[in-house]
């Protein structure tokens, strides 16, 4: 038999105490009466100019809706901590819909709690949910932000003079690899000789290392940089200080360096979250597997900056419109990875909705870097 956790113990004892003496005076039962309670959990601070801020802006939009109580917790590590946070939200705040937003929360943490709380809905950002493996009360949602990095790449391809663009990445997970590959492939639509140097920092938020990585890229002659870390502020400021052009990520960072900022791939979670909450409020069920891109309003692009040339603007707009029509493919065969393995044969292409892209484990030819 499993030893009960402190929270379960507290829950049981407080329930007993509540039934015996306090009745509905306990705060958790009061919270339960207020309609739908939704919990958001972030891995970092919710105003980090990046990933967590994008989600927190979505949560703020949900908070403004009728009949909804939002509880939030930030700086929750991808460890057993998140299980405690989720259990606390379920048991004490009465949350029935949870958005644990970080990639590492899914396996094993959400998967451990979902069977225990069948009435709670766990919506996870970025995890690869599959019907035969994972509980029905868990779901996965994500946006095709690789398309945004592809558009970033087009702006970068026009702006680079050294034909070297750079990418500061946190960890080699599929979403990050897709972003790196898309960024390069976008630039290569402008000039096939462009290469992309990637540096992995190993963690989602390591300010000094991100600054060092950006400096190392500058030292190698890279003149346009983007990133996939939780808070892009350090990368953007360091890169602007070294005279590089910037492509943003997660949120709009153009206020940090308006004349160097080309464009950026941004999340639009407000749209996604309010949509999901409306579905639940009207008695419906959120699909287990939710995906969307530019066309569905899951992602958006930052307005083009003053450094973007007319030619770049034209190609950017044309490609943007083509992506809006759907079924756009970034990876078109024949294509090899940067170790020489074939990833797409002639005529084969992976459109943005292809789930195969979500288990990407390679860097395409032209990316300088390694996944391990």
């Amino acid at each position, binding site marked *: 038999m499993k030893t009960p956790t402190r929270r379960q113990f507290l829950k049981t004892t407080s329930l007993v105490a509540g039934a015996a003496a306090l009745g509905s005076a306990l705060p958790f039962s009061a919270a339960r009466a207020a309609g739908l309670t939704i919990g958001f959990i972030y891995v970092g601070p919710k105003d*980090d100019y990046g990933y967590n801020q994008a989600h927190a802006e979505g949560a703020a939009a949900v908070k403004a809706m009728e009949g909804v109580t939002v509880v939030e917790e930030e700086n929750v590590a991808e460890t057993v901590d998140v299980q405690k946070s989720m259990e606390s939200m379920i048991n004490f705040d009465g949350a029935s819909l949870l958005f644990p937003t970080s990639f590492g929360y899914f396996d094993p943490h959400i998967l451990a709690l979902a069977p225990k709380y069948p009435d709670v809905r766990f919506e996870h950002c970025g995890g690869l949910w599959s019907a035969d493996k994972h509980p029905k009360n868990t779901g996965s949602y994500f946006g095709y932000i690789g398309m945004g990095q592809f558009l970033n790449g087009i702006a970068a391809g026009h702006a680079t*003079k050294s034909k070297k663009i750079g990418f500061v990445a946190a960890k080699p997970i599929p979403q990050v690899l897709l972003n790196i590959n898309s960024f390069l492939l976008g630039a290569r639509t402008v000039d096939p000789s462009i290469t992309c140097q990637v540096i*992995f920092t190993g963690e989602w*938020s390591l*300010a000094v290392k991100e600054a*060092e*990585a950006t400096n*190392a890229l500058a030292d190698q002659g890279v003149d346009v940089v983007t990133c996939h870390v939780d*808070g892009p502020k350090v990368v953007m400021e360091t890169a602007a200080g070294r005279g590089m052009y910037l492509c943003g990520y997660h949120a709009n960072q153009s206020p940090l360096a308006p004349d160097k900022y080309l464009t950026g791939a941004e999340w639009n979670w407000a749209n996604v979250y309010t949509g999901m909450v409306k579905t639940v409020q009207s008695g419906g069920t959120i699909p287990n597997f939710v995906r969307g891109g530019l066309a569905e309003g899951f992602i958006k692009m930052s307005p083009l900056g003053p450094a973007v040339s007319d030619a770049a603007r034209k190609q950017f707009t044309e490609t943007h419109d083509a992506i809006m029509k759907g079924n756009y493919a970034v990876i078109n065969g024949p294509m090899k990875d940067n170790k020489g393995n074939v990833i797409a044969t002639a005529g084969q292409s992976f459109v943005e909705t292809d789930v195969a892209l979500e288990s990407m484990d390679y860097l395409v030819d032209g990316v300088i870097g390694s996944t391990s």
Partner: protein
Amino acid sequence: MTGADIGWWGVPLAILGGAIRVSTPFLFVSLGECLTERSGRINLGLEGTLVFGAMSGYAVAYETNSAWLGVLAAAIAGSMFGLFHGWICKLPRVNDIAIGIALMLFGMGLAFFFGKPYIQPVAPDLPAFEFGAWSSLPQMQAALKVNVLFLVGIVLAIAMAWMFRATRLGLTIRVVGDSTDSARALGINPDLVRLLATGAGGALAGVAGAYLSLYYPGSWNEGISSGQGLMAVALVIFARWNPINCFWAALMFGGAGALGPALQSVGVSQGYYLFYAAPYVLTLVVLVATSSGRGLLASAPGSLSITK
């Protein structure tokens, strides 16, 4: 910028630049801790002091639009933490290590609490000297962009070494650190000396934080410190309580930390987690190489609670 291709030369350049850029916080915290430990007390709370210094420095710099006022504010905030630590440790039967850990958590919590509104705004940066202006290579210019605080740190290290060796003040601190009883016999108030030494050490740790938030990487967020304050405490032991050695140790840590990104940038990308461990591996190697059974901790202040 001109895209001069320097290939592998980027690695030594990055280590040089990284040593200068990354070492400053290590240098200030370790000098502060060196001073405190020389007086016979350990302040493990410097990580919290550093984070609070980073926050208060950034906040004040943003509100007043002056980076130097930010540094001043960080120093004052840091000395408050140091004095607080020193004051509590004056009370009978208080363990300075436990208080240090409590203050570390307290400082970080307080910094996160007050720092919320300052994550987004952009504060002015500290100025830097362009020592690389003679070179036509942008890489060299970037590597030799030296912040004023780094130079202040060098001067401070030399001054502190001189102070310990040749001045009455240095002697007083050393006496207190080596033997509380002798200090009392000489008519010195050990508690007062330790209080002031801990306060000054805290001020230096606060300045280290201000360097992080106001120069490199140059913004305030909750992940700004990656344990510099804690590592610097170990660095002092590693430097054998010698301020000049603290400087070399800080440089070495900074340079080793730059190795990982620099190697990836020239295409050595396999096993980058291993390169990121370089500073720690280096510390272990040097520690093993420089210790001997007999000479171990010989230069440690006698009244330090780890040697008692």
